[in-house]
C-alpha cells in the first residue's frame, strides 16, 4: 500500500522566523545585561563611548552575564569540534557520559513503569495499594533526593553510571506507569467480552489485546520519560563535584563564571533531549501505523 502520509504545509518559514526573532532578542538582551559593567569600565578609564562601541563590546565581553549567540557558537565549536573526543574539555565526551546514564535510566524506568502497570491492572491488591505510593514518590523533589542517593551509593563504594541511572529511573518510571495503566485498560469492553467468549487466559488477553491497545499510550509516556531521564542524569551529575557529564560541566561553568560553557552545555543537553524525543517519535509513528493496519494516523505530539 503506498499512501502518502498526511502532507503538512511546510514549516520552514515559521521556524526560521522564530529563530531569527529569538536571536535578535538575545543580542538586545546581551547589550542590556552586559552594558553596566562595560560602562563602568569606560568611566574608570575615562573613555568617550558611542552606542555602537558599547554594543560591540557587550557582544564580545569575556565572562559576560549573557554571552551572545556567536560566542556560544564559538564555545560549541572549540568544545565539540576542536577538542579530541577523549579530552576532558570535550563536550562530546561529557555528553556521552550523560547520554549513557540517561539511556540506562530510561530503560530501567520504562521497565519498572511497565511492570508496575501490569501489576496494577492484573492484581487487585496492587491496584488499591500501589498508586498512592507511586504518586507520593513523585512529590519528593529530585534535587533533594539526588545528593543522598549519590552519597549513600558512594559510601557503599558504588559510583559513576549506576547511581545516576537510578535517579533517572526514579523520574521516568512515573509517566510510564501512569500511561501504561491507562493503555492496558483502554480496550473496549466489547473486545474484552469477545476474548472471554473464547475463554481466553489472562495472558492471551494481555498479549493479543491489552498490550497492542496500550502501545500508543506507552509511546506518549516514553517521550515524556526520556526527557525526564536526561534531567535526572544532569541533576545526578551536580553533587559529584563536577567530575564528568553535562551536569558537571554546568557546575564547573558556574564555579568559574564561564557563562559560555554553561550555555554551550545547556544547548548540547537541549539538542540531545530533542533528538531522543524525536527518535522515539519516529519509532512511534512506524509502530502505530502498523497497529492501525496501515491507516493514516494523526496523533502527533
Amino acid at each position: 500500500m503506498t499512501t502518502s502520509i498526511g502532507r503538512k504545509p511546510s514549516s520552514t518559514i515559521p521556524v526560521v522566523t522564530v529563530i531569527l526573532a529569538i536571536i535578535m532578542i538575545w543580542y538586545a538582551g546581551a547589550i542590556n545585561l552586559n552594558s553596566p559593567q562595560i560602562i563602568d569600565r569606560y568611566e574608570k578609564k575615562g573613555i568617550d563611548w558611542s552606542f555602537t562601541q558599547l554594543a560591540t563590546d557587550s557582544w564580545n565581553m569575556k565572562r559576560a552575564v549573557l554571552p551572545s549567540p556567536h560566542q556560544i557558537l564559538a564555545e560549541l565549536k572549540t568544545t565539540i569540534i576542536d577538542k579530541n573526543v577523549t579530552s576532558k574539555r570535550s563536550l562530546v565526551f561529557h555528553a556521552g557520559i550523560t547520554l549513557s546514564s540517561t539511556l540506562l535510566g530510561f530503560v530501567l524506568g520504562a521497565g519498572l513503569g511497565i511492570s508496575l502497570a501490569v501489576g496494577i491492572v492484573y492484581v487487585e491488591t496492587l491496584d488499591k495499594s500501589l498508586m498512592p505510593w507511586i504518586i507520593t514518590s513523585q512529590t519528593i523533589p529530585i534535587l533533594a533526593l539526588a545528593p543522598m542517593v549519590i552519597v549513600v551509593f558512594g559510601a557503599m563504594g558504588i559510583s559513576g553510571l549506576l547511581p545516576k541511572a537510578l535517579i533517572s529511573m526514579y523520574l521516568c518510571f512515573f509517566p510510564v506507569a501512569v500511561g501504561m495503566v491507562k493503555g492496558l485498560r483502554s480496550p473496549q469492553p466489547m473486545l474484552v467480552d469477545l476474548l472471554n467468549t473464547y475463554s481466553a487466559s489472562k495472558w492471551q488477553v494481555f498479549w493479543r489485546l491489552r498490550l497492542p491497545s496500550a502501545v500508543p499510550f506507552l509511546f506518549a509516556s516514553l517521550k515524556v520519560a526520556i526527557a525526564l531521564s536526561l534531567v535526572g542524569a544532569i541533576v545526578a551529575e551536580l553533587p559529584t563535584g563536577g567530575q564528568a557529564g553535562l551536569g558537571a560541566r554546568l557546575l564547573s561553568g558556574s564555579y568559574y563564571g564561564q557563562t559560555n560553557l554553561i550555555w554551550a552545555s545547556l544547548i548540547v543537553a537541549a539538542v540531545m533531549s530533542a533528538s531522543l524525543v524525536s527518535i522515539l517519535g519516529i519509532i512511534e509513528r512506524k509502530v502505530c501505523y502498523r497497529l492501525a493496519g496501515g491507516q493514516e494516523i494523526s496523533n502527533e505530539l
Partner: protein
Amino acid sequence: MNLASTNTATNNVVEVKEVCLDFHTKDGVVKALSNVDLSINAGEFVSFIGPSGCGKTTLMRVLADLEKPTSGSVLVNGMSPAEARKQRAYGYVFQAPALLPWRTVQDNVLLPLEIMGYNKDQRQKLAQEYLQLVSLSGFEAKYPWQLSGGMQQRVSIARALSVEPQLLFMDEPFGALDEITRDHLNDQLLRLWQQTKKTVVFVTHSIPEAVFLSSRIVVMSPRPGRIIDIIDCNLPADRTLDIRESPEFLAIAQRVRAGLAAGHNYDD
C-alpha cells in the same frame, strides 16, 4: 451436576428457569430480567425481540456467561453457562464487528482458533473456509478499516463460525447496517442456518428480520424485562425475502407487533 439432569437436558440446548437479574445503579435497582423461563431445542432459530431496555441482550449475555443472573437457573448444553463458556460451546457475534485493527481480515478470523489452540493447518483451512462462506475470499490480506461496515460484520460472523460451534449467539448483528445490506445478510444467514443445522439465538428490534429468520420469536417487554409472548413461526424452509409480502408472514408480524404494543408503556 448429576447424570440424570445431564440426560434430561440433552434435547434442550438452552434451559432457563425463573431467571432474575438486577442491575444496581446510582438511581436504584433496575430489574433487567424478571422471572424469565425459556427452553431452546437443538437446531432452532430463536429471536429475542423487544424495545430498548427489555433485557433481550442481557438475557443473551446471561446465556453466554458474560453476565451473572441474580437468581434462577440457567443451563447451556446441560451445563452452567460458565462451564459452557470454558468448553467453548458457543460462538458470539456482537452488535459491532469488534475486529482488532492491527490484524488483517484473515488474522482476525484466526484469533479464536489461535486462542483455542488449533494447529496451524487447521487454522488456515477453517479461516479460508468460513471467509469463503461469507463471500470474503480475496479480502484476507485487507485490514478492517479498508472494508465497509457490512463486510466487517461478515468477518465477525466468519470469526464466530470458524470454531464451528453448534450454538450461535447473535446480538443485533445487522443493527448498524443499511437496509439493503441487511436484507442480503439476512438471506445469507438463513441459508447458513439451514445448511449447518446450528442452534441460533438472535437479538433484534426489527420485526421483519425476526419473522423472516426465526423458527420461534420471543417477545420481550421492559421494566421489568420479561417475556410476554413466544410465537411459533414455521414459514417454509425455502423462503426468500419475497415472503415478506405474503399473508402468513404479515399475520405473524402482526402478532409480534401486538405483543410489543401490549408490553409497551406509553407513559415512558
